[in-house]
């Protein structure tokens, strides 16, 4: 009986990288959208920031969709 160290390594790297990337996207998206809201409340325009924020949140959403794609066996 052998232990599949390679698979273990891949799982560890993918898990940690995905968690960190998802969290960075989510947190940065939240920060930008919030900053834009504050700016527009103060009378400025935060259009550029807000759209970048939503793009990041959208990518995070795509990651969730990819997760669902991975879970549902009918998709692959």
């Amino acid at each position: 009986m052998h232990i599949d160290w390679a698979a273990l390594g891949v799982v560890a790297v993918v898990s940690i990288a995905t968690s960190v990337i998802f969290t960075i996207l989510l947190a940065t998206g939240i920060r930008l959208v919030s900053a834009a809201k504050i700016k527009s409340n103060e009378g400025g325009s935060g259009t550029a920031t807000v759209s970048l924020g939503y793009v990041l949140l959208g990518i995070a959403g795509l990651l969730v969709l990819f997760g669902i794609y991975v879970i549902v066996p009918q998709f692959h």
Partner: protein
Amino acid sequence: MGTDVTELFVVITVIAVALIFDFTNGFHDSANAMAGPIATGALRPRTAVILAALLNLLGACLSTEVAKTISGGFFDDSLITAPIILAGLLGAIIWNLVTWLVGLPSSSSHALFGGLIGAVVVGAGITSVHGWVIVSKVLLPAIVAPLVAGIAAAWATRLAYRITRKTPSVHSNAGFKYGQAFTASMVALAHGTSDGQKTMGVITLVLITANLQASGTGPQMWVIIASGVAIGFGTYSGGWRIMRTMGKGIVEIETPQGAASGAATSATILASAHLGFGLSTTHVSTGSILGSGVGREGAEVRWSVARRMVFAWLLTLPGAGLVGGLAALLSDQGVPGVVALLVLLTAACLVIYFISRRHRITHANVTDSHEVLVLAAATPTTYADDPRLDTPKPKKAKRPKAKSAA
């Protein structure tokens, strides 16, 4: 003729007990997905378990490919008979109920394997069990899962706080709560696809061995639906005792931390399920919550709770194995033995249920405290937290009101 009736009785019993196991599997693992969102308030307790239950049901119905073997490589497949399966299931159910009573998360798959191994040892001797497989499939993953998920969650938590340091918490909490709800839903769906299969596999195997189903065919529609419904009901019932330990007992979970640990849990579960190194959902989610506590500055991780959990994990295989082994002594004694087992199972369930009623934990009080009490003598402190549980006064006060209303 007589043997046919006996066989049919055993088959029906195994199916019923498999569905009971499926139920305990659901309520034991409900916390894996939903403890975080409930603790941070991202989802209300009732909403969370209804969502998780539906996703588990959906997941169970989606999984087309049922595990072909239930031995998991721990022993030879030819050793699996209906009485062995029955004994193994009983061991797993009892272990799940006892760990639920003391509020400790433990892996349902390990409990099932433990029960089956115990039953096989009694039936065919210790030499029939492949010891190496226990190391590679139980011990090693039990160390790896919390480590990987913990590191992922700790980094993610640290980043989440650093990035949103200057963001007003009203905004950041709202955003992180959305993230948490989505990742928790993914965990629930993935749980349905993986754990629903276990029960379907058991039932299908029993039907095939009894020649009630053609060998090599997949689970029948009623088996899929029954398994999905059982795991869904189990999830809905919440397993609030475990929910409290995971959501409050290990560490107080703040919203950014909850989002980070949710991301770590779902990423690790999906990676392990699809990249060839199987990890237990329970160990992964517990590891994430621990890691998120380590990653947040100022968080106080209750290592004593973590230590107790590790003991429970180490004991899962031998504990369920012991019960499974004892049950195997009765389960191959024909109808009387099976009936005796059913009576014992019912008695054990009732005893555990009544002990749990002394300190009930429900959706209403799950986040009120971090302790799961079993015996009244333990510590009376949380008693005071929850006046509904001990004082007879409110009852007296309610009765006259109800009368006057009527």
